[in-house]
């Protein structure tokens, strides 16, 4: 009986790596100048140039991933400490689908939230969120005070 309970506990244990022990990453925000591209086109041009410059080993060390592409802006995730290499690699992208482009790095950050805010992808900024929180706290305090009076 005890053994069965123990086995159940073992099965229920989470197998995911805790966030503190995962590889650290950086998010880089790029903007594409001079042409409007679809996500597929950007993906295609980006990988081909980086692969030809770094090779498969070098690219695996950088470990880039396109997180989001919207309004000619791309958020790319990479390993921490490899962001300079990622930016340098993008310098070699000059044409995508016969359209001349310039890829301009705008921001490097450790959290996707700040990158999204900088790019204007999120409607709510930190300031707005703070204001909303403050309003909620005020409402709660008002309701509690009115309850006390009753």
């Amino acid at each position, binding site marked *: 009986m005890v053994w069965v309970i123990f086995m159940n506990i073992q099965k229920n244990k989470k197998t995911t790596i805790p966030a503190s022990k995962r590889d650290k990453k950086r998010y880089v925000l790029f903007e594409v*100048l*001079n042409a409007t591209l679809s996500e597929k086109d950007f993906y295609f041009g980006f990988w081909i140039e980086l692969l*030809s*410059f770094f090779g498969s080993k070098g690219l695996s060390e950088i470990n880039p991933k396109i997180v989001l592409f919207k309004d000619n802006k791309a958020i790319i995730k990479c390993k921490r400490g490899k962001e*300079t*290499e990622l*930016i*340098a690699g*993008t*310098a*070699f992208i*000059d044409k995508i689908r016969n359209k*001349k*482009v*310039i*890829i*301009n*790095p705008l921001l490097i950050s450790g959290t996707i939230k700040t990158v999204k805010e900088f790019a204007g992808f999120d409607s709510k900024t930190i300031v707005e969120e703070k204001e909303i929180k403050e309003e909620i706290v005020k409402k709660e305090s008002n309701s509690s005070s009115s309850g006390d009076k009753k």
Partner: protein
Amino acid sequence: MDLVYTQPLKELLQITSYFKENVVVIVDNEKDEKVAKTNSLIPCYLVDESTKDISKLSQKKKAVIGGSIKANEFACRINADFLLQPSNTKQFFDLGLAQKLFDNGTIVVLMFEELMSKNSFERHQYWKNFVEVVRYCKMKKVPFIVASGTKDPLHIRPRKVRSSLAQMLGLDNESAEKALSIKLD
């Protein structure tokens, strides 16, 4: 600071103002020099051994395209402000040359356009030689920059990209930024 060849002025000005970059334009005649000056660009004469009356250009900025022992030595002899592409698929750069460049205050420039236009086989040779050039420059404290070096305004690269390319070649962050922010009169 970025170095480019003369090119369509309107597009060049648009892009450089977007990137907020001081641009040195390589010119070969007085007309281009005037145009550059009127648009607050810094003109720089491209000089080689066949150029006549180099003494006339003593007050002006001079750039020499290296890539051979003769050309590199010529840059030292005339106190050039910029030495472009000191080595290509073969290495023509050593500590003695680096010391001379340091004494003259010459800036070593990698023209990125040339690197980009090559196929990957030639590119790896360029890269290997430039890593060596950067090592020598670091030893003798010669300023080294990566410039766009292009005739097409759409091949101009932003400052962050060029700085990270210099870092990949072996410079540290500080010296890469410092070399790119040298102000020319």
